[in-house]
């Protein structure tokens, strides 16, 4: 044993007396670590059974089996086929009966549109003779080949506008919040506590929930959406802006305090240049998130593409829903690309 410890490094984790005295490198795995892993596994098993993770895995497995031709049908694959059949093809054109369009001006049609005339024979009861009669009526339709796409695009632009203004509102609200919730700059302990509470409160309420209430306050439309996005993101930005102020290097701040500069000046010259790149990154993240959230909060009537989505879904117009979902996907994808480029340029 002595020879061994002298000659080669001792790999054993046991309490071998080593010659280096107090110096010791802990082995990477220990009994306590193993015990923790076992406990975590146990907890996962219990909760997994409660939320039916096992069935989720089974049903998905069956669906894959169907896709590979190993089975004839399964619940999930039947549902998937039905959804796809309903969704495709996505709605591009728009077709409206002329008689139902208000102030229709025949000499000034929208771009790329034409009028279709349908002749239909209708049977109806003649009240005098009480006999069924056939008559031919003609109905006119205004057909816009790209009409619905145009409508979705306009709604998408509105969504982006909501996201942009929500972000601006968030930045404007979070700057004073960050100042008050940074422990080393807050004017007073009470102000600090109130600011912290506000920040947590804003962050705790998801946009979708606050939009529900803000729609009651501001009515249906983009206003409620902007307010909902702004409030939630203000909580997020307030927290992160504030923590960055707290963690900024104290040296430059002390140097400016030492010559008698006031708090705001120290913040502007001693802290802001240090935290600026992070601030830009947070703000871009919030803008990115707001675009995604702006598509969703329309579901409760807060404007944008979500409102359109909800309406079409409730009317079983799944082809229209497909167009909207595609539009959302393309927008988020493009935004990701733009954000990545902006980030690499600015930071």
């Amino acid at each position, binding site marked *: 044993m002595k020879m061994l410890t002298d000659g080669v490094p001792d790999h054993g984790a046991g309490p071998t007396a080593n010659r280096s005295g107090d110096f010791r490198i802990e082995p990477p795995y220990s009994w306590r670590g193993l015990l923790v892993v076992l406990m975590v596994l146990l907890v996962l098993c219990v909760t997994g059974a409660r939320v039916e993770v096992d069935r989720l895995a089974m049903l998905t497995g069956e669906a894959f089996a169907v896709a590979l031709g190993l089975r004839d049908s399964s619940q999930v694959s039947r549902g998937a086929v039905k959804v796809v059949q309903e969704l495709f093809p996505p709605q591009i054109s728009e077709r409206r009966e002329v008689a139902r369009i208000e102030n229709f001006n025949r000499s000034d049609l929208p771009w790329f549109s034409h009028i279709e005339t349908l002749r239909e024979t209708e049977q109806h009861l003649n009240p005098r003779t009480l006999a069924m009669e056939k008559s031919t009526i003609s109905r006119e339709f205004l057909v816009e080949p790209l009409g619905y796409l145009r409508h979705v695009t306009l709604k998408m632009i509105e969504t982006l506008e909501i996201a942009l203004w929500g972000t601006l509102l968030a930045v404007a609200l979070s700057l004073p919040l960050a100042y008050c919730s940074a422990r080393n700059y807050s004017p007073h302990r009470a102000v600090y506590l109130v600011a912290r509470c506000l920040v947590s409160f804003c962050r705790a309420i998801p946009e979708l929930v606050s939009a529900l209430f803000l729609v009651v306050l501001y009515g249906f439309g983009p206003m409620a959406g902007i307010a909902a996005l702004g409030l939630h993101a203000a909580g997020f930005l307030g927290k992160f802006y504030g923590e960055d102020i707290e963690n900024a290097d104290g040296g430059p701040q002390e140097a400016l305090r030492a010559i008698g500069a006031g708090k705001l*000046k120290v913040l502007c010259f001693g802290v802001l240049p240090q935290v600026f790149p992070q601030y830009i990154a947070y703000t871009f993240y919030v803008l990115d998130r707001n675009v995604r959230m702006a598509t969703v909060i329309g579901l409760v009537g807060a404007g944008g593409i979500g409102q359109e989505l909800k309406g079409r879904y409730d009317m079983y117009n799944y082809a229209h829903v497909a167009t909207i979902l595609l539009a959302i996907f393309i927008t988020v994808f493009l935004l990701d690309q733009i954000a990545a480029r902006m980030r690499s340029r600015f930071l």
Partner: protein
Amino acid sequence: MSRDARSMVRFDNIEKRFGENRVLNRISLDIPRGQFCVILGPSGAGKSTLLRMVNGLVTPTTGSVYIEGWRVERDNLKHIRTGIGMIHQHFNLVQRASVATNVLAGALPRVALWRALLMWFPVPYRRKACQLARAVGLNAAQLSRRVSALSGGQQQRVGIARAFMLDPSVILADEPVASLDPKISRDILGLLRDESRRRAATVLCTLHQIDLAREFADRIVAVRGGEIVFDGEPKAFDDAALRSIYGQSELLAAAPSGIAEPGPSQVAEVLI
């Protein structure tokens, strides 16, 4: 108020305790206008604490500090600080900001808040920043460069330019060359001495390098264990004084073996 009309900074019976730990013990010191006074001592001797009392970054437990006869108090701190420039060991510049912004920041207390927030400094201050940048040996191209792109010595030049922005009557230099090499340390201290002489500013400079203190100081105040153990001209600062700062036993422990009684120059090398 002041006993001597020429007195610029006066420490009156200063004591400072952090909890049980007494850092400074009954220190009284009078620094006349225009003097380059080096406070010399080993790390932990309390020299930084003493220096930081002048602009109120540290408040004495008992005793007071007077600037031109005015007592440094919480109420007049902001006014007093405007007249005191400070140079720091770790430069304390904003690394990401440009050299120009860092130098201009030295004028912040005198600039209106709205101008400061817009980073729009009045023309006289911008002109002054340019003059100072030239005076401390920076070149024009460096003005718009980020501080992080400069070397340590050049960064301290920026720090000196910032300290002189408001024509302070007192300059506090807290170990200004501790993180620089000996050659650059000499350049920086020479610059500090020349600039402060030209502007008739009083300098309080803490150092731990004995040779630099001897070379640049008008007066050396040596501190050990919170007390003044030497106060006089550099040429009066002899081996006995040296021993009183660092202690015989510490000297011998620090010296290479074989040198029983090191001469002053060797001691200086060992201690740097």
